[in-house]
């Protein structure tokens, strides 16, 4: 695919909108500083559309301009969840047909995070934005532990419930608290030698699949995620792993028979 630039009002004109505040009182020097800062960001001839004194010592700028950076969208691989989104019925049929038992899923907003609307959107029978939550799926047993659940409690309950998947929500990102807490959970699971036992999935407004992979999770879901999408992923991933394990098992038993 050819190099692309942002689209203002004609193909590849590169026009972007920018706003920022400089710690300078508004005068000719501050305007020139704003212009040069936009140039450094890649906008050779920026338009300072608006400049206003915020109050003593600060000035606010709105800038438009054509950015010269270009990008080939095919020049990088993107970690994306391969599984397609299935319907409520298709998901339950798939599990019945190719797993033959209920999928057990446990979820929580971990450690300091008290935001539950996100995890509830995935778990509650009532669901969110027209999509039923996991509790509503006959082929799922969904256990929602709610808010501020410690990593230790979550892993203990996952073991007790013999969960197939652990679903974790992190909403607050100040001081990168979400990275510390998500890393803590994965490391704890590895330390207890149970990492491989679960699909570990994370979601929240500042999460994405590539970022989740970086943190050591199997999958990541960002803003606007629907419970149907999550259920589709869980069902297809668990079926795939289950069938891979069965194949491996058959192969091994064949080898054992072969070497009598």
């Amino acid at each position: 695919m050819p190099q692309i630039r942002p689209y203002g009002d004609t193909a590849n004109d590169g026009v972007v909108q920018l706003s920022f505040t400089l710690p300078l009182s508004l005068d000719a020097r501050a305007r020139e500083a704003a212009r040069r800062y936009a140039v450094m960001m890649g906008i050779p001839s920026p338009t300072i559309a608006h400049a206003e004194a915020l109050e003593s010592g600060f000035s606010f700028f709105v800038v438009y301009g054509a950015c010269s950076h270009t990008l080939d969208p095919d020049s990088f691989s993107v970690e994306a969840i391969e599984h397609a989104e299935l319907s409520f019925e298709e998901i339950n049929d798939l599990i019945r047909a190719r797993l033959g038992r209920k999928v057990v899923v446990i979820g929580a907003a971990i450690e300091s995070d008290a935001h539950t609307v996100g995890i509830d959107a995935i778990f509650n029978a009532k669901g969110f934005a027209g999509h039923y939550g996991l509790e509503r799926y006959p082929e799922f047993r969904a256990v929602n532990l709610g808010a501020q659940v410690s990593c230790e409690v979550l892993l203990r309950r996952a073991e007790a419930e013999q969960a197939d998947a652990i679903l974790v929500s992190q909403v607050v990102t100040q001081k990168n608290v979400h990275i510390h807490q998500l890393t803590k959970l994965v490391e704890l699971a590895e330390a207890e030698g149970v990492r491989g036992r679960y699909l570990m999935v994370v979601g929240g407004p500042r999460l994405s699949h590539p970022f989740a992979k970086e943190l050591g999770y199997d999958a990541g879901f960002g803003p606007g995620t629907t419970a149907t999408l999550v259920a589709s992923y869980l069902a297809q991933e668990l079926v795939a792993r289950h069938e891979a394990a069965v194949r491996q098992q058959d192969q091994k038993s064949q080898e054992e028979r072969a070497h009598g």
Partner: protein
Amino acid sequence: MPHLTLNTALVDEARAAASRIARPVLDLIAGHTTVAIERTVLRLIGVDGVDSVDVPLPNVVVERARALLPGGVLAPFAAAMLQTGLEVQPLAQAIAAGEVQLAPVPAPLPAQVRALAERLAYAGVQRIRASRRERDELLATRGNPPQPWIYVIVATGNIYEDIVQAKAAARQGADIVAVIRSTAQSLLDYVPYGATTEGFGGTYATQENFRLMRAALDEVSAELGRYVRLTNYCSGLCMPEIAAMGALERLDMMLNDSLYGIIFRDINMQRTLIDQHFSRRINAAAGIIINTGEDNYLTTADALQSGHTVIASQFLNERLALEAGLPEEQIGLGHAFEINPDTPNHLLYEIASAQLIRDLFPRSPIKYMPPTKHMTGDIFRGHLLDGFFNLVGALTGQGIQLLGMPTEAIHTPLLQDRFVSIRAARYTFDAARDLGEQFTWREDSLVAQRANELLRKAVDLLHQFEALGGLFNGLSQGLFADIRRSPDDGRGLEGVVARDASYCNPFYEMLLEVIQEHSPAPQGAAERG
């Protein structure tokens, strides 16, 4: 709708004064034709295309027949057809090539010439009937969106890029797309030919550009299950010609206001008012909604002090439009949300004039235009101001809402500017849908008092026009937008021609018949020929 209790005597007097002021203008119109009207007659009977040096054939033929224009170009053209046996376009090409000269026709007109002239005119009017029927069918099958209609502009200068953006705007929720004309096309006494990809601050209005954009919007209308309307500008020296092109290509709405041309483009008032009458007769027959340009008065004059000039101008525009045959439902009178936002109770003043105009012209689709001159480069402040503009539009039942852009003071709209604005307008119209039904204005409210004050001042201004001796003298004293124009100044006077007794232009009457098929008794269109 929270209607105002208006002083009905004042409202009646405003209309009476407008009628009295229109009288001498209509007499002038009845006694004259123009080069633009005669070019339009030729276009409507099928003359098109350009000569070897790209001059449109209608211009060439009319220039060659300047001496015959008092009787109209149609009769001599029909006579030449009979005499040469050539069809319409071949004859036009022959005239252009100098092979044929149009000759004077004897009076009274030979029956054969009159019959051919009427047959040619009838064929032209049938094309307009067909285009109108096509729109009515599409409105029925595609669906006619409810008002307020969301109106956005595209202005890239390249018709093919305009099409990309127009389709995107329609998909985002626009009900009307207006292709802004390359600036000052008003001043061209010819219509450029063919598709155009270079324009300045907008795209040239040409018949081919109309055809291309209408076809593109028909595609997206089918996709969306909603008929998307197309607007262009038939202001300026080619008013009737562009109206005819719009009629033939099924445009849905046209900027169509001589007062704009006179005041802001210094076009001669006699020329443009004569042109306007024929252009409005064509728009009326074609089912095209006209828009008038009173919003422009508020870009220079102060909207708080000069709000009443908009209303006086609307009464005049209404009268002239009715006289041309336009039913109220096709008279999209314009105004704007342009009071300085730093005015205490700013919203109350804007609501007062919007509600007053809504109540004064209940059956007309009022065209409400966004804040422009008080917009700054602060796109956040701008987006909020546009939000309140849309709220006042929804509250007072405006018909056509021309969307403001947060970047109004910066550049012509980006794709994302339009997306943000359309989405915000749709939210606001839905969120305030029945707000107007929730309450009644208090008699002693500032809103009611301001509305009645505006009405009073508008009537006073109309009386000032009368006191000064009519529309022309009033314009000479700068009564509108503080800009003075005199009757013999401005562009295009040389194109005005006094009709003689033999003047033949069956279109006036035949178009009236189309109008009457759709709205039984068009109020004022006494037959003036």
